[in-house]
């Protein structure tokens, strides 16, 4: 991946990473959007979309609820989509897809920790500014907001750059080996995604037991059609 391409990916990762919490939370950070955008930036939107769909299923479980610590899917999905759509994917698309998914999962985990670190840093700045805030100084209120936004963008851009850069060091021979029995690994990735998304949907519907059983019946029917058992 060229330096220019990496910088564009980092910029997109910064925007998607910010969207997770700080601005504007319009869910451009959801994997199915962010990975597709990264794929489009790399010239292969479809590869990004496929990686994004697999990641979206895995991301359904932990939602950004309150003060809990959760994976940061924005920059992660950009890194994953970029790897899946990288030039190396022309020779070994399935290998690149798998590498993209694993890169995104690792980045989501690491990104979650950097987000936690930034929250603590914001807390330190907030405590230091307390006397000025207690005096009603609006400039300090705005400065804390802008500083938090700027650092969050930088954090996410750096995380994306590091993840995409590291993944681009994987030699093409390793990708080709991955592609050799990629059908097995892709099936496993899809199964894991379905398990995580399905169990999450089941939990969310805890208060609607009838809908759960309607969904179970529909799943059996749709699964039979998708598997080719039913026409």
């Amino acid at each position: 991946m060229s330096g220019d391409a990496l910088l564009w990916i980092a910029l997109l990762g910064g925007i998607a990473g910010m969207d997770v919490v700080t601005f504007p939370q319009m869910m451009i950070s959801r994997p199915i959007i962010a990975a597709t955008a990264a794929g489009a930036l790399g010239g292969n939107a479809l590869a990004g979309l496929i990686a994004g769909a697999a990641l979206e299923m895995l991301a359904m479980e932990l939602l950004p609820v309150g003060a809990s610590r959760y994976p940061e899917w924005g920059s992660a999905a950009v890194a994953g989509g970029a790897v899946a759509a990288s030039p190396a994917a022309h020779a070994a698309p399935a290998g690149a897809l798998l590498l993209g998914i694993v890169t995104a999962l690792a980045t989501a985990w690491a990104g979650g920790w950097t987000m936690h670190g930034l929250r603590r840093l914001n807390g330190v700045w907030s405590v230091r500014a307390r006397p000025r805030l207690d005096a009603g100084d609006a400039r300090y209120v705005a400065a804390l907001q802008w500083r938090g936004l700027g650092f969050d963008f930088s954090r996410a851009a750096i995380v994306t750059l590091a993840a995409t850069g590291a993944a681009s060091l994987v030699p093409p021979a390793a990708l080709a080996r991955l592609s050799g029995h990629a059908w097995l690994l892709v099936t496993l990735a899809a199964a894991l995604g379905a398990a995580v998304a399905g169990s999450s949907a089941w939990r969310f519907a805890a208060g609607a037991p009838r809908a759960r059983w309607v969904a179970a019946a529909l799943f059996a029917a749709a699964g039979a059609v998708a598997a080719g058992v039913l026409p």
Partner: protein
Amino acid sequence: MSGYSVRRPLPLGLRLSMLLRLLAVQGSWNYETMLGNGIAFAMEPALRTLPGGRGGEAYRAAMARQARYFNAHPYLASFAVGALARAELDAVPATQIERFRAALCGPLGSIGDRLIWAGWLPCCAMLALLAFGLGASGGVVALLFLGTYNAGHIVLRTWGLNAGWRQGLQVAAALGRPLLRDLPQWLAAATAVTAAVALPLSVRRVIEMSGATVPSAAGTLVGAALVIGVLLGIALVRLQGRIEGWKVAFGVLLFVVLYSGLR
């Protein structure tokens, strides 16, 4: 009392400015004050209209009050910003504003989490996966998801700001609407039903479009993936709270990818 208070709608420019700032309400989110600083930041344009204007005594006192600890769902923070701005401009006593502010945190957090994070977002994400599974392009999937999700998101923020401003300290009436109470359950049911169709179709498209050379019919692999998915899903439901599915997936995939790529 200031010119904007009591039954007058917020001027459009002021409302837009507050809405834009509300999009960044979590800009300096931290474990000390949580959303507090963002609430003051979003409300600041309205506080400029207090007697004495920007930098006046009333303005500084209100800014100091509003920059303290506050926690809520970020989208529903608009209710708080509208209602608290109204209370400040109506010159409600400080102790009453502080009590009201503290009382808002719990309901705005729990309603928002159930309505958005466990309702609207998964429902829209499943809709996007359904479109993906049915063969839609990336552009269509993105437009469908972002358009649907943000229609609800922006309407909620705008309604919250307006309802908060209109009802001031009586904003609890708006939060007690049956729609807000029942909607999360309907959304959860819709999510489950959509997921039932979206997940098998998405699994099939991921396998078919991955570029992997499939040794047998793709349908067999899809069937195998769905059976494994159901078994793992049941295990995840049973182990709820003790294990995170995405971490399990990460561990398994990392191991098999490293094993396959390095051997």
